[in-house]
């Protein structure tokens, strides 16, 4: 029991650090990708190829004046960035980062908590995630912040529906809400993306919206709202908001990989004749490679597409994504129910 506890604490620490470092270097990667797409070079002054740029940015944030507007709700104003950061970090707890590892005669999962309602937990925390933005925008006592906050919350509500319905299709095919089970069910190249391409498309569009990333970054919307909900924030409070966005992106990429791209599974993983621990380590590396690709995809899309207009965003959410998700759900349900009859019918015909 005590070994298990120690191992879990170590895993928690490692995952926490990896999450923070990944988010930190996502900012660097974002700047480099943006620069590359715009035919520029990007940060290259701090260290070789500018790899210390995130440290310099973070240091700068610490030394900025920490300003609290006079007419703001002081405690809520301080609470909001912490809340955003907290909810962003919490979702990492149930991602299955790797298979099982056997160390010191003890076998354990590379997962902090293997809970049965994994996906519900994620959806729950994603919904709480908007509270940080909403409270921050409201407590600032600034109309642009409030606009940003209102936009963010209505956007979250609209896109969570389609997202939930898209996930439901995956849950139906797997028959479990447990993320570990969902990953195990995708062993042997049977990735969900091949069985549920529409659900994947809907999910990734909704993930962009839930992360408040371009082309759905209505909550920030520099050109209209001067930064939206974080207009009044400065110093490390602003840093927390921006950082939470990158953590959310990291976690979303992880969830996309888990749900649709087989998580830590990789093709031919049991045909190579490797030991179980080696397979687990390669699996973790493969998982992070998938996450990295999706983070890159997030950035790629951001620097390609212009921002949606707000009414277009709502139209896309309510009039396109939700009906499509419902149709997808019904087709999946019908297929699951009648597939045996269908096979029987087809085999009888030939």
């Amino acid at each position, binding site marked *: 029991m005590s070994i298990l506890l120690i191992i879990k604490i170590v895993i928690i620490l490692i995952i926490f650090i990896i999450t923070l470092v990944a988010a930190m270097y996502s900012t660097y990667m974002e700047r480099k990708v943006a620069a*590359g797409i*715009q*035919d520029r070079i990007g940060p290259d002054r701090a260290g070789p190829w500018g790899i210390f740029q995130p440290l310099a940015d973070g240091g700068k944030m610490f030394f900025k004046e920490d300003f609290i507007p006079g007419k703001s709700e002081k405690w809520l104003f301080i609470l909001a960035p912490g809340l955003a950061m907290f909810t962003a970090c919490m979702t990492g707890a149930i991602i299955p980062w790797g298979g099982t590892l056997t160390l010191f005669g003890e076998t354990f999962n590379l997962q902090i908590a293997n809970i049965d309602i994994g996906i519900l937990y994620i959806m729950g925390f994603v919904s709480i995630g908007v509270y940080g933005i909403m409270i921050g925008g409201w407590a600032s006592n600034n109309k642009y912040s409030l606009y940003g906050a209102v936009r963010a919350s209505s956007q979250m509500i609209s896109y969570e529906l389609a997202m939930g319905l898209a996930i439901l299709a995956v849950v139906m095919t797997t028959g479990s809400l447990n993320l570990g089970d969902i990953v195990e069910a995708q062993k042997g190249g049977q990735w969900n993306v091949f069985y549920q391409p529409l659900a994947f498309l809907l999910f990734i569009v909704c993930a962009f919206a839930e992360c408040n990333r371009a082309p759905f970054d209505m909550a920030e919307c520099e050109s209209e709202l001067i930064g939206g909900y974080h207009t009044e924030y400065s110093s490390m409070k602003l840093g927390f908001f921006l950082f939470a966005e990158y953590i959310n992106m990291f976690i979303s990429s992880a969830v996309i990989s888990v749900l649709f791209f087989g998580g830590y599974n990789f093709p031919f993983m049991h045909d190579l004749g490797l030991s179980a621990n080696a397979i687990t380590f390669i699996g973790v590396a493969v998982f992070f490679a998938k996450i990295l690709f999706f983070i890159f995809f997030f950035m*790629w*899309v951001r620097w390609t597409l212009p921002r949606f207009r707000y009414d277009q965003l709502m139209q896309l959410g309510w009039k396109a994504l939700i009906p499509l998700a419902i149709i997808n759900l019904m087709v999946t349900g019908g297929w699951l129910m009648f597939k045996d009859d269908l096979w029987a019918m087809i085999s009888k015909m030939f």
Partner: protein
Amino acid sequence: MKSLSNRSIEVSNKKMTFMERIYLPAVIGGLFITLKHLFMKGATIKYPEQTRPVSDVYRGKHVLKRDEKGAERCTACGLCAVACPAEAITMTSAERKKGEEGLYREEKYATVYEINMLRCIFCGLCEEACPKEAIFLTTEIMPANFERQDFIYGKDRLVEPIDKRVDVSNRQTIEVVTQKFND
């Protein structure tokens, strides 16, 4: 009415086709355009290490030339100050004393010669006005500074160092030089 230039395009308000309305083909097309740019060479010139090539007659920081023996050419006639449209040049003159022939070429010289670089518009009229071929603009780019006072360049920063001559031969055509010295 038909346009005369034949360049006008009829505005159409046609309904989008299904493929256009689902937006995805356009999105994927856009993604490939940006991906292509990711592998293109950037247009950046890393300034302090690399500099953009400038023309030989680029008008940058000024220099007060010395003659072949190292004496200052400027005689403080004030023609550059008069020619200057931005009123950037001021000077005070003095008479050359005995024994200073090696320092100043003519009997009169400038004790103080100041160019306010914040006023200067780098038009090159001082260069054109100078009858003694003393002041030239160089290809050196004016550096930035923190204090206004530091933008006022005195003789310490304008006169060319005796051991580090500034080459201005590219900006002097033979015709101009002979004409100036014949006048």
